[in-house]
C-alpha cells in the first residue's frame, strides 16, 4: 500500500499505529512500513475527541490520515456519529478532515467479540484493508478512490467470504433483543457495584463513549472526557437521580443496549473488549448480554 500512502501524504498529515517501547500507540509516521498491525493500547478516540481542550477556540483543523486503526475501534466513530456529528463542532470539523484506514483482523483476538456487532468487516469505511499473505485486499470509499486508482479494489465478495469464515472462529453472542431481555431491577447491577471502584476506565477506554464535562479554567473553558460511573455525573440543583453506584452502572449498560438502540437503532458497543481488559475488578460487558434475566 506504499504507493497510495505516498499519494495520500501529499494531501494529509500522516499518522499510524506504531510500536514504541513495547506499546502500540498512534503517532506521526513517515512511511507505510512503520505501521503496526497490532491493536493500539488505547482506542484512537483522541483524533476526534481530545481528552482535554479549550472550547472557546476551534482552530482550523489539519487534514489527517490515520493508518492501522482496528475495525472495532473505527466502528466506534461511526456509532458516535449518530449522536455527535453535526452538533459538536470540534468532533464534526475533525471527522470531516480525517481519513481512517482500518485493518480487518485476520484472526480473532483474545476476548474480542466484534462479530456480535457486525465486525470485523465494516459496512462503512474510508479505506478498509485485509491482509492476505503479502498483499492487501482493499475496499475504498468513493471519497478517497482517487488515491487507489492503480490498485485492484474489491467488490466486497472476498470480504463477505472472509467474514463468514471469521464468524465460525468467533461465535457471535445473542445480542439481538437484549434491549427487551434486560431488566431494571436485575441483581447484576448490585453485583457489579459490589466490585466496581468508580475509576471510569471503562468509559475512557471505550471507542464509543463520547460524554464530556465542561468547566472553566482561568481564561479557558475546557471540555474533558467524563464518566457516567462517577458519582457527581448527574448531580444538579434538583438533586441527583443516580446517587448509587448500581444505578450508574445500570445507566452505562442501558445507554449502550437499550437507549441508543431505541433512539438510533444501534447498540453502542463494538465488541472490542477494551472495557473488560481495562477494568481492575473484572466487570465484563459480555455478562450484560449473556445474563439470564428471566431466571433471576
Amino acid at each position, binding site marked *: 500500500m506504499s504507493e497510495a500512502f505516498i499519494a495520500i501524504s501529499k494531501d494529509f498529515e500522516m499518522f499510524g499505529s506504531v510500536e514504541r517501547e513495547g506499546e502500540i500507540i498512534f503517532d506521526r509516521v513517515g512511511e507505510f512500513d512503520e505501521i503496526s498491525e497490532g491493536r493500539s493500547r488505547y482506542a484512537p478516540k483522541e483524533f476526534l475527541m481530545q481528552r482535554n481542550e479549550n472550547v472557546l477556540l476551534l482552530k482550523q483543523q489539519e487534514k489527517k490520515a490515520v493508518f492501522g486503526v482496528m475495525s472495532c475501534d473505527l466502528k466506534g466513530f461511526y456509532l458516535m456519529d449518530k*449522536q*455527535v456529528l453535526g*452538533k*459538536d463542532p470540534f*468532533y464534526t470539523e475533525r471527522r470531516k478532515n480525517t481519513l481512517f484506514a482500518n485493518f480487518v483482523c485476520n484472526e480473532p483476538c483474545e476476548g474480542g467479540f466484534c462479530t456480535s456487532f457486525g465486525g470485523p468487516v465494516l459496512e462503512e469505511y474510508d479505506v478498509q484493508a485485509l491482509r492476505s499473505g503479502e498483499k492487501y485486499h482493499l475496499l475504498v470509499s468513493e471519497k478517497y478512490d482517487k488515491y487507489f486508482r492503480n490498485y485492484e479494489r474489491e467488490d466486497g465478495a472476498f470480504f463477505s467470504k472472509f467474514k463468514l469464515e471469521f464468524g465460525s472462529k468467533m461465535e457471535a453472542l445473542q445480542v439481538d433483543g437484549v434491549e427487551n431481555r434486560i431488566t*431494571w431491577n436485575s441483581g447484576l447491577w448490585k453485583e457489579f457495584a459490589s466490585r466496581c471502584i468508580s475509576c471510569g476506565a471503562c468509559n475512557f477506554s471505550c471507542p464509543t463513549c*463520547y*460524554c*464530556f*464535562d*465542561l*468547566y*472553566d479554567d*482561568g*481564561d479557558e*473553558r475546557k*471540555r474533558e472526557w*467524563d464518566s*457516567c460511573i462517577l458519582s457527581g*455525573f*448527574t*448531580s*444538579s*440543583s*434538583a*438533586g441527583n*437521580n*443516580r446517587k448509587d453506584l448500581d444505578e450508574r452502572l445500570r*445507566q452505562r449498560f442501558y*445507554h449502550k443496549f*437499550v*437507549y*441508543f438502540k*431505541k*433512539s438510533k437503532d444501534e447498540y453502542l458497543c463494538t465488541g472490542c473488549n477494551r472495557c473488560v481488559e481495562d477494568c481492575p475488578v473484572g466487570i465484563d460487558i459480555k455478562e450484560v448480554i449473556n445474563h439470564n434475566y428471566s431466571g433471576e
Partner: protein
Amino acid sequence: MVVETRDVYTIRLSAINEGRSGQFYMISVPGVGEAPISVASGFGRKIEFTIRDIGSVTARIRHSETVGIRGPYGNGWPWTDYDKIIAVAGGIGFPPVRSLLEEMVDLGRGKDLEVLYGARSPSDLVYKKMLEDWGNTLDVHITVDRVDSGWKGKVGFVPSLLEDTHLGKEAAVFIIGPPLMMMNTVKEALRLGFSEDRMYLSLERRMECGIGVCGHCNVGEFYVCEDGPIFPYSKVKESPELFL
C-alpha cells in the same frame, strides 16, 4: 439586578430574548463556569433571568460585571397547540411560567391561561409587584405552604389550587417545580379528570453542553437539554428515571 427573595434575584440584559417560553440559556461567569437558566421574559422582550443562588455560578452572576450567554436551547411549552392552558408552578419553577404568560399576553391570548403558583412562604414569592398588576387582568392563583406575617391569601400546597380553576378539564396542564410537587400535581390533576394526554412537565437535569452530546442530562433515550426540558407526561411515566 432586582432582589426577589433571600436567595433569588433577577437580571435584565439589553439583548432581546430570542427564546420561547420554556427554553433555557447557558449563562456563564468567566473563570467560574456555566449554569442552565430558563428564560423568564417572553419572546421578543428584553431578556431576563430569575436565578436562585444555589451553586458556584448562580451565586456569582449577580456580582459579575460580565456574564456570558449562549442559547436558547431545548424545546418550549407547546402552548400554541392548545386553546386553554393551566400552568402550575412551584418555587423557582415560576419564571418559565412568567415567560409563558408574557408570550401569551403579547399575542392577545392572556385569557386562555390560568396560572397557579405556590411558594414555601410569602417571602419566597418572586415578582411581587408584577403579581399585583397581573391580578387585575389575568387569572393568577397564589398559595403558600406556610404563613409568615400579614398574609391574607391562600395557604396550602399548589396542587390544591387545581380545584379552583375555571378553564375546564379540556385545558392542557403545564407543570414545573420540584419533583415531588410535580408528582403531586399530576396525581391531583388526574384525580380531577384532566387528561394525561394534555399534561406536560418541565424537567431539571444537569445540562452542560446544551446540544445533546455531553451526556449529563441523558435519561432514557432522551437528552433533556435537546429533547426537553419539557416532556409530555405520557413519556415521563414510561421512563423510570424521568421522575426524579
